[in-house]
């Protein structure tokens, strides 16, 4: 196994472009090292991005935020301003693993590991987040929802590396929330995940994004679910319409973690519950 510690994302991308065999980037390593130890994936080339300047920074950018590729969950949770503006994104990241995992795990690793059940991804999608990708032909921005391609797969090309996550400016009267269903209270993988991000005007929802995790091969951005609540003050009928839209967007599998019927039903339940939390966070009285 070749281990690299490049000093820039351009170098990291160049090493990856030339690499032969199984290549992995090492952010927190909470997926990579676990897969290595479990004899599931043994990389031939391992590129550690943590030596690159700025990867641990959370910085203001165009009224929003730039979160470096190696910022850990714990660092996000402790960042008060970030948490005040994007509590849904922060709580989604905070759900990952335990205290030990929180000290290492990153948003970018969670996204690029390609798990349909990744907790932070629906929250990022609902937030309208994007990532910077450094590749052969320079740096480009991609919406988060365009990264996952299926279980364990991304749309990143050989030689692409993600350098940061961007959250848009929060603006007024807005809130987001993320909920997941697990059979236990912690240390488990989402059977269903749902994030809702919305903006209010005088108690009425004027913008909304609803995203679901673990109910399809990739994260879903559910336009119908958003439309079900836009223009409403989140009354019972709107919530029922939201639940129905969320459920009907599901395309899950039956597996050891949950059945199709269960996931489909619970997606609707979580959508309602997350919407109510986001609504309250946006300043709407309920």
């Amino acid at each position, binding site marked *: 196994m070749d281990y690299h510690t490049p000093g820039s994302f351009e170098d990291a991308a160049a090493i990856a472009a030339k690499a032969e065999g199984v290549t992995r980037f090492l952010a927190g390593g909470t997926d990579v090292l676990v897969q290595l130890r479990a004899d599931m994936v043994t990389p031939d080339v391992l590129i550690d991005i943590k030596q690159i300047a700025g990867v641990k920074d959370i910085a203001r950018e165009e009224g929003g935020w730039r979160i470096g590729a190696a910022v850990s969950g714990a660092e996000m949770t402790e960042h008060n301003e970030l948490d005040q503006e994007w509590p849904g994104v922060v709580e989604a990241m905070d759900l990952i693993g335990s205290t030990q995992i929180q000290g290492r795990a990153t948003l970018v690793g969670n996204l690029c590991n390609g798990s349909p059940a990744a907790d932070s991804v629906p929250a990022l999608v609902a937030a309208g987040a994007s990532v910077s990708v450094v590749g052969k032909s320079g740096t480009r921005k991609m919406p988060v929802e365009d990264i996952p391609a299926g279980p364990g797969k991304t749309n990143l090309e050989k030689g692409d590396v993600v350098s940061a996550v961007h959250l848009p400016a929060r603006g007024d009267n807005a809130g987001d929330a993320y909920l997941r269903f697990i*059979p*236990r209270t912690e240390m488990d993988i989402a059977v269903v995940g749902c994030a809702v991000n919305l903006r209010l005007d005088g108690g009425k929802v004027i913008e909304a994004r609803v995203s679901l995790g673990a109910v399809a091969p990739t994260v879903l951005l559910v336009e119908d679910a958003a439309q079900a609540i836009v223009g409403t003050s989140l009354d019972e009928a709107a919530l029922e319409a939201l639940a129905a839209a969320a459920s009907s967007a599901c395309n899950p599998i039956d597996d050891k973690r949950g059945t199709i019927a269960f996931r489909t039903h619970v997606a609707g339940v979580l959508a309602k519950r997350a919407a109510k939390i986001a609504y309250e966070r946006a300043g709407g009285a309920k």
Partner: protein
Amino acid sequence: MAPDGNMTNGFKVVGTRPKRPDGIDKVTGRAKFGADATAPGMLHASIVRSPHAHAKILKIDTSKAEALKGVKAVVTRADFAEGLTGENWNILENVMASDTALYDGHAVAAVAATTALGARDAAKLIEVEYELLPHVTDVDKAMADDAPVIRAGAADKSVPEGLHPNVVRYHESGHGDVDKGFSEADLVVEDSFKTEATHQGYIEPHACLAQLGSDGKGEVWCCTQGHFNVQKVCAALVGTDSSQIRVTPSEIGGGFGGKTVVFIEPVALALSRKANRPVKLVMSRSEVFRATGPTASTSIDIKIGMTREGKITAAQGVFRLQGGAFPGAPMEFTAMCAFAPYSLENVHQVGYDVMSNRPKQAAYRAPGSPMAAFAVESVIDELCNKLDLDSIEVRLKNASKEGTKASYGPKFERIGLVETLEAAKAHPHLTSPLAEGQGRGVSCGFWFNHGGETAVSLALSEDGTVAISVGTPDIGGSRASMAQMAAEELGIPYESIRTTVADTATLGYNEISHGSRVTYASGLATIKAARDAVKKLCGRAAAKWGIDEDAVVWEDGCAKPSGPNAGDFEPLPLAKIARSMGRTGGPIVGHYEATPEGAGVSFATHIVDAEVDKETGQTKIVRYTVVQDAGKAIHPTYVEGQFQGGAAQGIGWALNEEYIYGEDGRLQNSGFLDYRIPVASDLPMIDTVIVEVPNPGHPYGVRGVGETSICPPLAAIANAVSNAAGVRLTELPMSPPRILAALDAQANG
């Protein structure tokens, strides 16, 4: 106190809560567990396992592995003893397959190399050619006419004609006339239940270090509940004499019955013999799940009749247990425990031991009993609900007492079921209000407890301190309890005694630490060994004083003349006698060897409150109280720990733990991520009440406590969840999808 007398009060040390002697070792990480042993020149081993549920092994090609640098030995079945019969054959077949792989994870070969990674790589180079055979993993399907036969001719004489060859043992027991009893009932409830296999879930995977020379002399260091059994089984499987294998047990990171079984030690010995080097073998978590014993899965039918006043008129049960690809599922325990809490005129139980393509089941705390209680106590709860009767009163009305003819045959001696029910009735939990969405459940549970072969020795040091050697690995704080009992007898401080779990060369044969037997049997042997030492101490005093041995008594740690007639001498403390023992007759050692048979049975009553989220099917256990008869709690903290541990494991079993097999017969969840034992935040504080109804078969009244505590939880939780959800749950685990499906089915009529 008479030398052989029983004592039930006036204790000085027993019943107190001293610090555990292995505490510092455990919290500082100094304690040595199975994988902590090393030896010069040690090799590392890896086992090749079948990825198929059922397959003929056509060919094993080890040449590529053997050619790999660092590989020192490869073994297959040909490297083990031949001509074994009975259970030894079954164990060997499980330890290393012969011509057929019987379950996903079944060992087929093993390799030893200079590094652990090298062994893992070499294992991948061993090529096994399989011919797939049809498989079955469900107990009901394994009994059906069209089920593939796991092994023809495996059934014993107990099985009636006409049953599928996978049914390998049959049990029937009971008394009275159940048909007559059912006709006298005002209400008869009948239902069917299923429980999935669950793993003991010990945190420490199996691990050993073994050495075997061409002279047949061997050493094993391993993590086990019973090193004498490891010695016996290893000797048979590698073909040497028991006394030539010395086994030293390590500290143990949990066992719960799962470490009463031998899996890897014979493999490490066989590799060592071939390589002529010590070999270390450590299982991965996935191997632990795939290839060590979970408990049996079950399919159960229960029928109970009751009068309007709550008297049970008849009870009957059919218990089908799947125990993997070998005989031995504990169906007779299931059948015998099922109705044991109740005094019944008419009772009948039938058990089936069924083979399937799963790992060989192993004991798990009160093997077979929790599943029986789940089914029986669910039906009793249903009867109470339908007849509008109080669940504790109904259990009190039917409770077994001293003199009751047990559902499994014998008459009960002094038992404490009624006392646990009375204590539950008086507990504030039972009358506390329930919140919206919550339900309450109660259940009783029963376990036999066990005595077994036991040997203990107790040696005095010159400075007046004492070393106890026991042969039962300490799986629940027993070193402290032994020291307490010896301190009580000898009249010296607890701190002056050290208890060691000695190796197989030090003591006579000791049965495994199982059957909740250690505090009972090793405790009894410790007390008797201490009394033996006291007799010798008194003898030395008598000789010094020139009086009769009978004229000396032992009190408060001193030899004293028994009365004025015996003479007037200064009391001689233990330390003083010990200091001069070299000159007064040599070392003083007390010992005791026997197979005590007075293990008292024990009962428990649990109360649980559960909250069910009807939108998601999620269950939260909000309050839990364990009431159990301990006979006598030597170290109450450890007794409470056993109570809480049984409840915690029961919560996992009831709600989320299960072996999930795919269509291909492979285990889908061989890790703690998807095999969901409860995490700390899933559990409420578990309240405990120790009831003490002394066991007449132990000098201090001790009953085993380790197993009874896991008997009521499945039922108590199922009753709480069913009452909260408003629908009867009859299948375990009561996972969220299953609860939602039950609610759906109810809503759709």
